[in-house]
């Protein structure tokens, strides 16, 4: 049998940026009706490759073929016209417009005098949304949609053209499990209609559920392609990071120190109620719950960003008042926030200055910031956390997600806190960096920090925590020791199901 013609094929793609060879001779193909997963650590070149495919970057060398015809794609629009569509991780919709307008944005059907033909627009958009099993109408305003439904609008947009290849970049990053199922149905449907699909994700179980083949990038080079049915997570991981990972459960075998942080009856309006817990030094306490369960709000209260309506906070047995981040820092509390780009980093600022920002007042020689003191701190945490950057002068915005996260962690470790709160430590980070950050969190606890980890990922919570606190709708439902906690009882707890009601 003749081999099918690839929907999209890349040959020897080289892309360099000043000081970096982001892609070094990468070849890759996706067949029609195939889901081809693309894997690699952050910084391995996935984003660059995708942007090259979607016409956002021009390769320095190499060729791109669509159905074996060589093409040059200078803009995303041109790429779309040729049948290559990228579904972004960060959605790019006009929030104040209807779903239909977004789907046909730029090519709205018109009547005479350039007036929009609303009837046709809504009819055509409605048809596409129906095909995607969407429960909302074409006239719904995008700002009223959930993130999952917004993603559906993006996908609907892709379907307006005769797409030959659709690239999904981390599509499930903000989806619930039920929404994921719908997305996978759509992907299978696209597949059945002969579209080639490139699927990028860090979540191994998804890749094994949905993909036919897996290609791996490391350090900008192509490392090989595996047939999904014939490989294992282990093999893929090894190809990706060049070693295997230890994802074992956390065995609580250590003696903890004194209680470093104690919270009694803390409440904050409708956000959370009557929160009582403690963290000992040397211990990792995991907070698990759905988004909106009040976990982040507790962290923000401890860091002085919210004022509690009731309750007390004690540090090493002494009651403290924390009414601003300045107070929290002075009391030895550090917070690695949920969103590194919005809350954690000044993206345009260099690596060194980001790390030293909270303590720049103390790093002075006379009235001036001491270059030497700053560099010493930067180098210490660069080495300790293995942050990969060409130099301290690099703007943080140019680093990969994993390295950005390490900069935020480094910034707060450098404050030598007593209590370290880490909110979603590995969101949007690849498995290799994830494991590194998990190990780091445990190491930190072992060296005497009291650590709180807030996470929506169950394996993460199970892996790093000595104790797990399950939250549902602003309340602590149950506290588990590492020995007690299982996936089942954790799921029950965070769904609001009390153990006694489940037979």
């Amino acid at each position, binding site marked *: 049998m003749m081999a099918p013609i690839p929907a999209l094929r890349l040959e020897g793609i080289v892309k360099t940026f000043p000081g970096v060879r982001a892609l070094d001779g990468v070849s890759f193909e996706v067949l029609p009706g195939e889901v081809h997963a693309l894997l690699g650590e952050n910084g391995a070149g996935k984003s660059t490759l995708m942007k090259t495919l979607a016409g956002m970057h021009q390769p320095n060398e190499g060729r791109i073929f669509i159905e074996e015809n060589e093409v040059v794609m200078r803009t995303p629009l041109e790429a779309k016209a040729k049948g290559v569509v990228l579904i972004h991780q960060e959605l790019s919709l006009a929030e104040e417009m209807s779903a239909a307008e977004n789907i046909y944005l730029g090519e709205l059907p018109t009547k005479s005098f350039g007036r929009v033909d609303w009837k046709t627009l809504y009819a055509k958009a409605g048809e596409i949304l129906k095909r995607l099993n969407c429960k909302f109408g074409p006239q719904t305003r995008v700002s009223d949609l959930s993130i999952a439904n917004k993603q559906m609008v993006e996908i609907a947009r892709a379907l307006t053209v005769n797409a030959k290849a659709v690239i999904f970049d981390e599509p499930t990053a903000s989806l619930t499990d039920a929404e994921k199922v719908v997305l996978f149905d759509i992907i299978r449907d696209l597949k059945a209609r002969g579209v080639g699909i490139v699927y990028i994700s860090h979540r191994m179980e998804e890749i094994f559920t949905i993909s036919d083949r897996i290609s791996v990038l490391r350090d900008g080079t192509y490392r090989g392609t595996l047939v999904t049915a014939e490989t294992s997570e282990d093999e893929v991981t090894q190809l990706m990071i060049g070693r295997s990972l230890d994802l074992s459960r956390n065995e609580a075998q250590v003696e903890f120190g004194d209680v470093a942080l104690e919270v009694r009856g803390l409440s904050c309006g409708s956000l959370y109620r009557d929160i009582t817990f403690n963290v000992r030094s040397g211990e990792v306490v995991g907070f698990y719950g759905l988004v909106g369960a009040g976990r982040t709000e507790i962290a923000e209260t401890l*860091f002085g960003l919210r004022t509690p309506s009731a309750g007390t906070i004690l540090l090493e047995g002494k009651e403290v008042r924390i009414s601003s981040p300045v107070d929290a820092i002075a009391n030895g509390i550090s917070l690695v926030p949920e969103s590194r780009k919005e809350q954690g980093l*000044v993206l345009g600022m260099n690596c060194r200055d980001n790390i030293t920002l909270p303590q720049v007042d103390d790093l*002075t020689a006379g009235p001036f910031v001491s270059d030497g003191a700053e560099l010493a701190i930067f180098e210490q945490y660069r080495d300790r956390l293995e942050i990969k950057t060409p130099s301290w002068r690099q703007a943080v915005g140019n680093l990969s997600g994993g390295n950005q996260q390490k900069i935020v962690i480094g910034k707060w470790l450098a404050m030598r806190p007593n209590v370290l709160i880490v909110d979603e430590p590995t969101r949007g980070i690849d498995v290799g960096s994830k494991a590194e950050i998990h190990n780091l969190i445990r190491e930190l606890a072992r060296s005497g920090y009291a650590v709180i980890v807030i996470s929506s990922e169950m394996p993460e919570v199970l892996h790093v925590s000595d104790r797990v606190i399950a939250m549902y709708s602003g309340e602590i439902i149950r506290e588990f020791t590492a020995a007690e906690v299982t996936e089942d009882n954790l799921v029950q707890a965070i769904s609001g199901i009390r153990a006694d009601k489940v037979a």
Partner: protein
Amino acid sequence: MADPRLKSIGDLLARQGILIAFAIFLVGFAVFSDRFLTPENLETVIRQAAIIGVMAIGVTVVVIGGNLDLSVGSMLSFSTVLVVDLHDKIGPELAIVVMLAATLVLGAINGFLVGVARLNSLIVTLGMLSAIQGLTLIYTGGKNVDILDQETTWFAIFGRGHILGIATPILMFLGLALFMHVVMAYTPFGRRVYAVGGNPTAAVFSGIRRSRLVFSTYLISAFTTGLAALILGSRVMGSQNNVGQGYELLVLAGVILGGTSLLGGSGNILKTVIGVLILGFIQNGLLLMGFPYYAQWLVTWVVIILAVWLDIAAKRGRLLSPIA
């Protein structure tokens, strides 16, 4: 595919475009006018640019912190009128103290509304622009003010005098620029201004008191405007009550020409100095070449648009945005 040589020219433009433009202007005017490069003329240009330059230094700090200050024009009117009027009434020393204090109060109002109340800086300072003009007119009752004893007062030192053989306005302009450059580039305060301008949320999450910091940037721009009023009042020895009208735009033009991003978080005091000098040299060069003075308005605008465009184009590697 981009030609790598073009790319490196783009990089050079992106980084040093303002210096290159500066050099081109100097050479261009020197070719067309033999009076242009004389020391006397150069001194005149820098002295005349000093008022806008001193103000632009303060405004650069505000802009790096992520805000705008459009009130400096009418603040200049107010402060100049005040110091000139009080000169004969309470003596130059007290007049200067009262004027600087009053100017700082105006800056504090800006700082409170933008920094503490978190109102949009464009609206606040645009409102203050007209409010302060009104205040000035109420103070003078619409009359212009002047200093009677212009020959013997030591107040003349700021606008007309020389220190160590250098015209005082030039000394104040360049001295202040150097001082502020050091503050912004090498002190914790400067670092915090860049951080707040670059990402206010992350700055708060890093334990920076954002309100207080934004407040202080407006005090700085009010203070530099007060210094500019000293130079202006002393040079003219009198003041119309709308003398600073339009200065806010020239000041902002100098800041933008210097490459400071209006989005905040980046910028450089010394480049603002060059931006202001370019404006000054364009004005002077056009006059020497025989153009009417109002030609400068047109040319200034063209230069600013070109500067901003080249800056953006060099950053994205092409002239027009790839996203249609």
